[in-house]
């Protein structure tokens, strides 16, 4: 189905199932431990062996020699695979660094071997006996040192590193009110609960991988490319994923090493990446240095806005696109953005939840708060004065929907924003300095082709199959709701099967594009199935209604299952998009409000209340949408207050590479969280009229906290995370 004109009324608008708060249908499987996560298919494959990964001990250089003799003679050892004996390996389209290193080492903890043994414990013990001698080389590990040498990265299509509109330098220089500030965000880890894990089994030259992956088609292709197999010979199965946040968008070492280990061992092999390896072995969100300049008139209207961002990556890696939102969020006639990329020998930087906007909004939304203060304006009023209903770089492109100001105003009322004392450091509650902060939320809505197959059996059960994934987000549930709405059956009559490369290719889970696109793909397939049902039952499909398990036209009504009485009916289709995303800018908007306390003696920061107001198209399921947003708000608290991969700039690795060292919020850090979804439908986005929500909830949260810290203390911290040592020396006497 081609979607190239705005959606009109369609069966989804009935809202009998869609739009209703619905608990996740896969919940019972998870709470009873029956969900088959990658490492946990206890019934298959038969008698697997276990692989344990050896990570490189240096950040850059070469393996001078490797001695496997002691490991080989350890109890239970079946095979050891290294780059030397693995055979020729390709590199996946979505990988920057090789997944099996050697002889060259590209980053710390890059896999250099997988040790396969009868038991996990034997593999782990033998892995310690693998002796590797390295010839270390000098590397670059310090972004701030590499800043001056950073280059302009190549553009990709419409996605260019630099943009300019009007005369930014001139307009900025002549603005009566100016801000020129630099902000930094650290390297961050996905740190999801389930590690990267895979089980591999070969049948001849056909490979089955049970894995944990967000993007089945990308990864199937990259497995084939890496191992030199035809794509048809690779089957990926990934029905349950214990969190990904972008860390599982791509093929990673666990899958490649499970496959290589299984080939060498001549039997199935399972590999779970050990937690202390995850932080340096896999990808992370790269650190940024961001310079923001804003010039405005005394009327509070922005006349010049400039945003430059520096990040680092391995050769061939991409920059963190932290200036993205600044191209779209606020008005201003003179504009510039620029991305610069330094070559670093740290582990591979890549997408993490809301790449670009998450770190970009961390900086921009502090800058807006600073600017509002300079103008003597309330930060909400300042944003309202600079609202724009068109893409400010291309004013002929209107936003499809944009309710940023509404989000802010509704949030302000709900949160009691008027109780905030605009003068910082004035609100006290016992030993706590109290502050409130606000920030805009913004994240683009991406349209991606997505396919599905739907099948109807004679009992009236509808089965949906798509390679879409559910990374804990609720895909199973909203897909079931979509099929139920379209086919007029209750939710219990829908079976959803996901995450299998033998199913039609979907958008996958990433970039908050999963929900809208994958359900639209299911919509398209259901439209086809409805036609097939109508034809089978001899109905004229124009006036036909699918309700309560019945197909009705005029006064004839037949049970839906009857259409499959002499055999299952199946239909497959995908949603494909025209150029509505070119003619209209599609984005999601919101506002984040935070109240927190700062201990006057210790400068410890404790959040008290949070509110997010979101305008993100049709909310398909308020329960799962809320879970996405409060989860994202939690992640934003981590980004603001504690998350930082600490770089050892001498040896080039992230030092705090376990969950004791890399702190993420715990329950005690998270207070009452509220969410409000504005009633919105976006006919430009898809037949579902929905947009993304999963990343919007993160973008801006950290800045709202930073602004609240400022309001509480009068101390402006521009380097994340805002830990107490950055406040302490400027705190008032207790």
């Amino acid at each position, binding site marked *: 189905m081609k979607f190239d004109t705005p959606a009109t009324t369609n069966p989804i608008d009935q809202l009998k199932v869609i739009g209703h708060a619905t608990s996740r249908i896969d919940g019972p499987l998870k709470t009873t431990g029956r969900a088959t996560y990658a490492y946990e298919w206890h019934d298959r494959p038969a008698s697997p062996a276990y692989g344990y990964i050896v990570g490189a001990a240096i950040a850059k250089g070469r393996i001078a020699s490797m001695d496997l003799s002691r490991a080989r003679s350890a109890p239970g050892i079946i095979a050891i695979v290294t780059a030397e004996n693995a055979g020729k390996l390709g590199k996946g389209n979505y990988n920057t660094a090789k997944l099996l290193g050697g002889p060259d080492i590209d980053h710390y903890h890059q896999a250099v071997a997988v040790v396969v043994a009868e038991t996990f414990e034997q593999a782990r013990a033998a892995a310690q006996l693998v002796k590797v001698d390295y010839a270390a080389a000098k590397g670059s590990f310090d972004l701030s040192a590499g800043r001056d040498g950073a280059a302009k990265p190549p553009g990709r299509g419409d996605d260019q590193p630099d943009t300019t509109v009007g005369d930014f330098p001139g307009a900025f220089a002549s603005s009566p009110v100016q801000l020129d500030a630099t902000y930094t965000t650290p390297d961050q880890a996905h740190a999801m609960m389930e590690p990267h894990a895979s089980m591999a089994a070969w049948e001849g030259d056909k490979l089955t991988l049970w894995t944990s992956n967000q993007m089945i088609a990308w990864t199937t292709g990259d497995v084939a490319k890496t191992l030199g197999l035809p794509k048809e010979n690779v089957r990926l199965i990934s029905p349950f994923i214990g969190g990904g946040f972008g860390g599982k968008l791509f093929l990673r070492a666990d899958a490649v090493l499970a496959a290589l280990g299984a080939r060498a061992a001549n039997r199935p092999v399972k590999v779970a990446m050990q937690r202390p390896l995850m932080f340096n072995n896999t990808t992370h969100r790269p650190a940024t240095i961001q310079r923001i300049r804003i010039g405005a008139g005394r009327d509070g209207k922005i006349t010049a806005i400039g945003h430059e961002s520096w990040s680092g990556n391995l050769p061939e890696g991409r920059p963190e696109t932290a200036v993205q939102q600044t191209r779209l969020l606020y008005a201003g006639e003179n504009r510039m953005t620029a991305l610069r990329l330094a070559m670093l020998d740290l582990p591979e930087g890549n997408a993490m939840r809301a790449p670009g906007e998450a770190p970009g909004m961390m900086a921009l939304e502090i800058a807006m708060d600073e600017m509002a203060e300079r103008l003597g304006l309330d930060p909400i009023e300042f944003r309202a004065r600079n609202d724009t209903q068109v893409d400010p770089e291309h004013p002929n492109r209107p936003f499809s929907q944009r309710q940023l100001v509404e989000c802010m105003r509704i949030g302000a009322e709900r949160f009691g924003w008027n109780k905030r004392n605009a003068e910082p450091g004035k609100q006290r509650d016992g030993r706590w300095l109290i502050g409130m902060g606000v920030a805009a939320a913004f994240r683009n809505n991406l349209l991606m082709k997505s396919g599905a197959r739907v099948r109807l059996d004679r009992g009236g059960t509808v089965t949906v199959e798509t390679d879409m994934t559910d990374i804990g987000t609720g895909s199973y549930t909203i897909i079931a709701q979509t099929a139920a709405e379209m086919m007029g059956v209750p939710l219990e009559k829908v079976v959803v099967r996901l995450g299998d490369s033998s199913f039609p290719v979907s958008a996958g889970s990433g970039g908050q594009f999963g929900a809208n696109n994958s359900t639209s793909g299911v919509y398209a397939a259901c439209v086809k199935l409805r036609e097939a049902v109508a034809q089978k039952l001899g109905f004229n499909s124009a006036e036909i209604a699918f309700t309560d398990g019945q197909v009705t036209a005029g006064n004839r009504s037949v049970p839906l299952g009857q259409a499959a009485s002499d055999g299952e009916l199946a239909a497959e289709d995908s949603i494909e998009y025209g150029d509505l995303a070119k003619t209209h800018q599609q984005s999601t908007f919101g506002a984040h409000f935070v109240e927190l306390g700062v201990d006057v003696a210790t400068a410890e920061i404790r959040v008290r209340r949070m509110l997010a107001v979101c305008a993100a198209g049709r909310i398909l399921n308020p329960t799962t949408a809320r879970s996405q947003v409060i989860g994202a708000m939690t992640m934003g608290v981590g980004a603001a*207050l504690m998350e930082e991969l*600490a770089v050892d700039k001498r040896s080039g690795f992230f030092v*705090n*590479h376990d969950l*004791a060292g890399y702190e993420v919020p715990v*329950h005690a850090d998270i207070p009452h969280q509220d969410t409000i979804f504005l009633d919105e439908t976006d006919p430009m986005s898809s037949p579902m009229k929905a947009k993304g929500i999963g990343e919007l909830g993160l973008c801006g949260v950290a800045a709202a906290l930073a602004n609240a810290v400022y309001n509480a203390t009068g101390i402006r911290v521009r380097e994340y995370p805002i*830990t107490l*040592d950055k406040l302490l020396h400027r705190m008032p006497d207790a």
Partner: protein
Amino acid sequence: MKSFTYEKVSSPAAAASAVVSNSNAKFIAGGTNLLDLMKLEIETPSHLIDVNGLGFDKIEPTSDGGLRIGALVRNTALAADARIRRDYGLLSRALLAGASGQLRNKATTAGNLLQRTRCPYFYDTNQPCNKRNPGSGCAAIGGVTRQHAVIGASDACIATHPSDMAIAMRALDATVQTARPDGSIRDIPIADLHRLPGDTPHIETTLTSGELITSVTLPKPVGGTHIYRKVRDRASYAFALVSVGAIVQRDGTGRVAVGGIAHKPWRVEAAEAEMPHGAKAVAAHLLEGASPTKENAFKLSLVERTLGAVLTEAKG
């Protein structure tokens, strides 16, 4: 993890003979620290002697009005004990500030005292570390040191002792009772149990080979207001950046021990004389000779400010 043999002993004598006949043996209690370190091959005992059956799991009054805490009393049980809560509130509060409920259910009094540092370089076996691998160097010095010691450290090691409980024990003047393999027993004042790193950071305590902790004794209660203040970025389930354990009497005198800043619970009795004069005076004495890194210099003012808050709180 290296393979090891395991036995469970039911008497101190059996523990002693097990330790004598196995040169590379270790006691295991709750296992919450030891097993993690064994998985990473930071600890590589060839024999584990499980002491959970020794019956050291009671809290009993002593003849001079104190309490004897069995070495195997779980952190949860110790924190919840009515006598501890009433007379040694500092200990209860310090325990509850540590780890998580699940861990405290397993963790024992002796194991807690003997837990090893959380220096991230100690945990990464690719890195040089004098504590893990004597003579290999110290990767932390010149590296990421926000958590490390600011006082009492050496050129060989700048690690901290991570225990919360030990800070309270130190302020309470606890003594540690032990049994040696030859059957002799002794009392070690808590102040003498942990060592500064010096040139031998791998030798962390004054216990001798095979010496078993049997109990920890608290002297008669000293009254006063008991406050344990643990400072950290994350609200729970994080080791202290700095912690202050204090007992403050009505006249402003008292005791204070500090965690998160040294290789052992940090207490300077002479500094306590300054308590009536406020936190600044105490901190100046307490931190005399401190040599922080650029990254952890904030701990000096954090100690002073936290202590200030504690003294204010004690005044009520």
